[in-house]
């Protein structure tokens, strides 16, 4: 009896855990861009973001090492690292939140689904609540996430006057696979 109980408990535990894992999608090569259009045309891009999305709960997490951003010119790269995002002091940027309308996404059917995400965005060591619109695309079983939103750099304690009108556009683009 005791053995049966143990086996049943183990079975349910494995079923529960594997069910959770199957609901998760991830990418280790998510693309994130920071763009500030002005006379300096700051365009920083990285394909090293780690993205995890839970299909069931809508939980969405992004994290990226800020030093992984690449800029075209060396001078601008140094300015980005040393003066704008101070990457030695604040090496990581991340978003932890939830897709508000995950139930609108049919992962079994190809299509583009409008979504919005709400959560906490950490840049330059400052955490702020944000809501961003985006879309989830399902195509032949591959799920991808895209979003573009803007933030005020002053909100994140970035006071460098070299960034145009103080607005930075952030774009996110990634294809996810099952965890």
């Amino acid at each position: 009896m005791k053995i049966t109980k143990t086996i049943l408990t183990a079975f349910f535990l494995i079923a529960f855990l594997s069910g959770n894992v199957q609901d998760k999608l991830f990418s280790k090569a998510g693309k994130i861009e920071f763009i500030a259009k002005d006379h300096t045309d700051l365009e920083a891009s990285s394909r090293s973001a780690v993205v995890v999305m839970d299909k069931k709960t809508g939980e969405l997490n992004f994290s990226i090492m800020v030093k992984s951003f690449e800029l075209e010119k060396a001078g601008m790269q140094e300015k980005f690292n040393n003066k704008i995002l101070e990457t030695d002091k604040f090496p990581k940027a991340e978003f932890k939140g939830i897709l508000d309308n995950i139930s609108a996404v049919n992962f079994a059917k190809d299509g583009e689904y409008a979504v919005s995400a709400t959560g906490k965005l950490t840049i330059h060591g400052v955490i702020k609540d944000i809501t961003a619109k985006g879309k989830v695309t399902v195509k032949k079983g591959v799920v991808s996430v895209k979003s573009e939103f803007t933030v005020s750099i002053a909100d994140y304690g970035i006071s460098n006057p070299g960034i145009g009108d103080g607005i930075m556009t952030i774009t996110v683009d990634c294809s996810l696979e099952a965890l």
Partner: protein
Amino acid sequence: MNGDSSLLYLFTFTLYLFIALMKFIKKKYILWAGLAILLAAGGYAYYEFMRGNPHLKNAKADYTFEVVEIMNVFEQDAALANKKFMDKIIAVTGKVSKTDSNGNPAIIFMQHPDKMSSIKCSMDSIYKNDYKNIQPGTTVTIKGICAGGEVLDFGLGTDVTLKRCAVENKILH
């Protein structure tokens, strides 16, 4: 207005100012010296603005590792490893587990044989011919600038990112 034209406008404006001043100032050599300084400063500013990022094919690596070695180092103490290796040129040898050329830059993954941990190599597109035919299973040495490593949540292991990467050599199996 972009940065190039801003510099050009500033330089042209200053040049006109000097020419105008030359009409009024008797000691012309002062102006010529000033003009020479302006040209040198303008040239330096333009060089600095246009300076590209380094390409690493012929650069000497600061550190060399096997895939598992570098992962162990970051797994043990990521903060300490970041302090030591950040911005250094690191050459890593290991088996390619996955290539992702769907975006720019292309990413080559070298994965730990037993874990989800991986080295992510963000490739320098100038060397595309060197890496475009690399397939999973190929053993390669890739060197790049260390952009940091972190222990990830959700059982995703430990990732180390190298950027502006170049293939040093490859062995086909």
